[in-house]
């Protein structure tokens, strides 16, 4: 589904050169729930951004569904992000001046669908995360857990094949974090959505199928969690 080969990412500023990713190889299969762990600054977000076509690697090969994306135009990349990928961020990234349901409609705004259909899909997505009663609220009126559920609903509204979640529970307490984790697990198990999630929480990571550990821009472990648990 997503294939990364020999990915390198180097950030250059005037004074320093940071190697954020060093020869990373990764194949995420359809239907997998992959968790990524590693210390802060080891390149997890960078990896997720490259998988989500938000950033380009300095060198290496990225393919979605077997098709290399290097030569894609801005429009083709936007279309892939819009249709195939849903994003969930640690800091939610909701638009403060839009109501919950308007926030959830966002990915559909960049598709040729009618206002009515947009609204319908958005409400369905909010139903899935249990926020049907908060559709007219504004983000500032919600708790952190509710905000992250809005963000998940927004990712779901576009009906993506894969969800990329960067520390989705990082700002939440364990109760709210577990709620979010349950939603993601259900999505993976019931709807077959592929999920790649960065997390710092070992408990959460152990609930997924596959755990990849990172250190200093390199994979240091890649194991099936089920095996690890046995």
């Amino acid at each position, binding site marked *: 589904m997503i294939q990364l080969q020999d990915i390198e990412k180097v950030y250059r500023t005037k004074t320093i050169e940071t190697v954020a990713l060093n020869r990373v190889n990764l194949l995420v299969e359809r239907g997998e729930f992959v968790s990524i762990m590693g210390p802060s600054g080891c390149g997890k*977000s*960078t990896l997720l*951004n490259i998988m*989500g076509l*938000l*950033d380009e690697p300095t060198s290496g090969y990225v393919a979605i569904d077997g098709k290399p994306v290097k030569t894609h135009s*801005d*429009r083709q990349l*936007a*279309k892939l*992000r*819009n*249709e195939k990928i849903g*994003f969930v*961020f640690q*800091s939610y*990234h909701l*638009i403060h*001046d*839009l109501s919950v349901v*308007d926030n959830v409609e*966002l*990915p559909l*705004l*960049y*598709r040729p669908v009618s*206002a009515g259909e947009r609204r319908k899909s958005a409400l369905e997505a909010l139903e899935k995360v249990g926020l049907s009663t908060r559709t007219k609220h504004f983000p500032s009126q919600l708790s952190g857990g509710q905000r992250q559920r809005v963000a998940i609903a*927004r990712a779901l509204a*576009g009906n993506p094949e894969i969800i990329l979640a960067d520390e989705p529970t990082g700002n939440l307490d364990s109760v709210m974090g577990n709620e979010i984790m349950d939603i993601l697990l259900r999505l993976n198990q019931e709807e077959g959505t592929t999920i790649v999630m960065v997390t710092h929480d070992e408990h959460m990571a152990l609930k997924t199928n596959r755990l990849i550990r990172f250190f200093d821009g390199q994979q240091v472990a890649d194991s099936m969690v089920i095996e690890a648990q046995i």
Partner: protein
Amino acid sequence: MIRHLFKLIWNRKKSNFLLISEIFFSFLVLFGVLSFALYNYHNYRQPLGFTHDNVWQVWINPNTDSTAQNLAVQEQLLQRVRSFPEVAHASLASSNTPFSFNTMNGDLTYEKGKEVETHNFEVQDEFKDVLGLQLSQGRWFGPQDNSSLHPAIVINQKLKGDLFGSEDPLGKKVSANDSTHYTVIGVVNHFRPASEYAAEEGAFFGRINLSKDNKYVWTGLLIKVKPGTGVAFEEKMVKEISAIAKGWSIEVTTLEKMRQSKAKMTLVPLVAMAVVCGFLVFNVALGLFGVLWYNINKRTSEIGLRRAMGATTRQIRTQFVGEVLVMATFGLLLGLLLAVQFPLLQVFQLSPAIYWQGIGTAAVLIFLLVALCALYPSQQASRIQPAVALHEE
């Protein structure tokens, strides 16, 4: 997408208020200045009704009160002026000659109709030839008017409309407030002597007849000289008539010079207004640019998010330009609410067409200005890398 923009703008109405009110005020100022400029331009395009090339203005002033003697001198002086071969035509006139700063007005009434304000020009028969007046109806003054019971007058089209509407004015009697009655004998096409930039006003000519109870020394002597006549003749003429009219002050100028100084009266304030308005608009543009720049920088994470959700660079650019244009439309609509009162209520007696043109031009200029100011910041916004934009929080 438009609906989405409306929602965004509405929900941010507090921070957008400043921008909208800036646009509102700029529109009103532009509308005012443009209407004024268009009004002057529109007047400028209308015929004056007379030609002023080679027409000289000779101001003659006796400086004494001995009427009988002065009247005799006036006649002698006129005869001398007419006898120069360089002078084609000459006519005494009341002091409100074309492009002068003098006016003489009064009211005229036709039958039981309403009083109509009008300008009164006292002229001799040759005045028509001095200024090349064109009659559209009836005739100009002639010796046959010497014996008329009610003094003959010639009116301009504007006064004809004001007094008579569509009625035929020829032979009709009109009265002034001092209960003098006049008979209308002719209509000139146009007569707009105040300034090239002034609207035409009602005007009528009365006849100066020196041989019949003339009581005044007419200070505005107009002469039409033959082409090519210059300063040498002016000196000669002034010398000779000064010899006749001893002690009188005599000043010669040309109608062209008078036209220029009259034009300055309009153009100087107009240019000043245009400069102030231009400065204001420039400031607003800078402010607008600054506000947009600031807003867009504040919204980088939103931009990154939208890119992640599948917006193309073009859609980002369109969204930001679109937002600004929608706000400009709000500001303009508010301004329009005020501006349309001017043509609807006929404020200042400008014709509604001029107001509408002012509104249209101001609106187009504002849209252009706003689009121009929005283009660059929006372009920059669309270039922000999504990963970088999402990183900044």
